[in-house]
């Protein structure tokens, strides 16, 4: 056998000088080449690449600045009535024209921005807190508690939200607080569902078990382990709550349940301008309608962008 093989494969030796010794630098091998990115830094980097979402973000920042400063800097006040100058088209003294009581539409538009942003942000924030507490508890407890709490959610989810909001507004009387309360009474359900789904998934991961084995208390686990890891979908949901709250506020104004006359929200302004569009006073409807649409657009594209940026599966 050996002879046969030797005959088939003639002995060949490779001379030693053909080999080149490669220097193995053990310390270099351990070196980190790229700076490690935290989840948030990475999400921010990816969001910056999304031009549409960044446009939305910049628009919203500008909108917030104008909403804060424009009513202060404007020479007119929101409620100042000036009948000789009613229904003026946009001009140098009234940039967005005036309404049927001679009030400056420019000032009122930015005041309306305050109202709309305030309603949207408050609704999102309150939804966030209720949703986190309810959904977090339900998801973390699991078992019977969870399925009972979810039954409640399922029934509430079936309620036609806008009808309940309208009902609450009729009973409590139209005011800013009422709008926010009515919107959150129905709105927190969606947030609770998302939080619960996330918590249910994450609570079985090893790092949570590790935390538990170190003796961490339940509130600590929820605060330190679960919540930070559920923040992605929660933030997206909050970004998408704001435009729907702004829409709901405008919708209620159209039904005559908005905030009352001398003050202005975009919905009230658009609703008041409705009867006069046939007479050609386009600016009274155009400016509030334009800003409602663009703001909702900005929040929607930002939400879409965040959804992609905060999704760990798409991390590249």
């Amino acid at each position, binding site marked *: 056998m050996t002879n046969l093989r030797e005959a088939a494969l003639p002995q060949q030796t490779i001379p030693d000088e053909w080999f080149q010794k490669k220097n193995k630098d053990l310390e270099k091998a351990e070196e980190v080449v790229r700076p490690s990115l935290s989840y948030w830094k990475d999400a921010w980097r990816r969001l910056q690449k999304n031009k549409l979402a960044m446009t939305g973000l910049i628009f919203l920042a500008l909108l917030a600045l104008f909403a804060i400063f424009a009513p202060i800097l404007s020479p007119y006040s929101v409620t100042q009535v000036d009948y000789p100058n009613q229904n003026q088209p946009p001009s140098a003294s009234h940039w967005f024209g005036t309404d049927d009581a001679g009030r400056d539409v420019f000032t009122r538009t930015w005041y309306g921005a305050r109202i709309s942003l305030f309603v949207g942000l408050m609704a999102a924030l309150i939804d966030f807190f209720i949703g986190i507490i309810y959904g977090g508890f339900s998801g973390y407890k699991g078992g019977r508690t969870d399925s009972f709490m979810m039954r409640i959610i399922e029934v509430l989810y*079936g309620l036609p939200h806008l*009808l309940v909001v309208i009902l609450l507004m009729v009973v409590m009387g139209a005011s800013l607080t009422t709008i926010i309360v009515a919107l959150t009474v129905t709105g927190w359900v969606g947030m609770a569902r998302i939080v619960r789904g996330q918590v249910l998934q994450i609570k079985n991961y090893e790092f949570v078990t590790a935390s538990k084995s170190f003796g961490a208390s339940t509130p600590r686990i929820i605060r330190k382990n679960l919540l930070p890891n559920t923040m992605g979908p929660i933030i997206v949901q909050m970004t998408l709550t704001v435009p729907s709250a702004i829409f709901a506020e405008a919708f209620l104004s*159209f039904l005559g349940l908005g905030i009352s006359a001398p003050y202005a929200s975009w919905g009230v302004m658009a609703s008041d301008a409705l009867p006069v569009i046939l007479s050609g006073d386009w600016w009274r409807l155009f400016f509030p309608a334009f800003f409602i649409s663009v703001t909702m657009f900005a929040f929607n594209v930002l939400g879409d962008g965040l959804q992609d940026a905060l999704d760990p599966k798409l991390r590249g």
Partner: protein
Amino acid sequence: MLKYTLKRFVMMIATILIIATLTFVLMHSIPGSPFNEERTTNEAIQENLERFYKLDQPLPVQYAYYLKSIVTFDFGPSIKKPNESVNELLARGFPISFELGMTTILVAVISGILLGTFAALRHNGVIDYAAMTFAVFGISIPNFVLATLLIQKLAVDWNILPPATWSSPLHMILPVAALATGPMAIIARLTRSSMLEVLTQDYIKMARAKGLSPFRIIARHALRNALMPVVTIMGTMLAGILTGTFVIEKIFAIPGMGKYFVESINNRDYPVIMGTTVFYSSFLVFMLFLVDIVYGFLDPRIKLHKKEGEA
């Protein structure tokens, strides 16, 4: 399947009961009686009125009467228009709102699915970008803004379509367009993303390998699975459209439910508000129930489950 349907049914009844109770509690938590207004009524008349509307009874008794009125579908007379009953208002207004709502749903679903499918088939092409740009705008522009824009341009400036009322199919175009654009955009986006996912599946490759025509692949194999997410949101979308009709009806002066509902809110006509809310919510919850059942039939996983159970 039967167990699933039964569970959904119980859930539906519970939801309707909660809405009804909530409405009752809210309406009765308003201080004073609906007749305590600026015009001072004779005390005897007021007592008679309260007896007529059963407002003199203790609350639990009123609640029982109220539940009975829901079960028998008789919501009693309106307070502000005493010679009209809530049922009459519903019978007059609801068919029109229903027509508007259903036409809208039909238009939104068909055009949304077509748009989403074409966008997915031309992924990252011109049609895709155009459709998705349109979709983001559709979602962002509130329906009442769109409605006023449409009236301004198509009816007033160009005089192509009638600006208001509800008397011919031509009159339906603008309100339906205003109401359908938002839901259509949402459906188009959903269809596109789930279609893109489905098209990468092995069974689509298999269908292609069999030599089926692209149309057949899409219509028979891809759409059915791609449409599952669309069916899921149909219920909530329907609720949105039907409440959306309130505002659209007001803008276009359509004599549907919205008109009476807004009137009853402004007049604080409680029987009408209660009747309308309960009727509308029950209708919506029932639709949600139907959607769930349809979903159960469509979802292959639920069917598979049943077969395993039988075997």
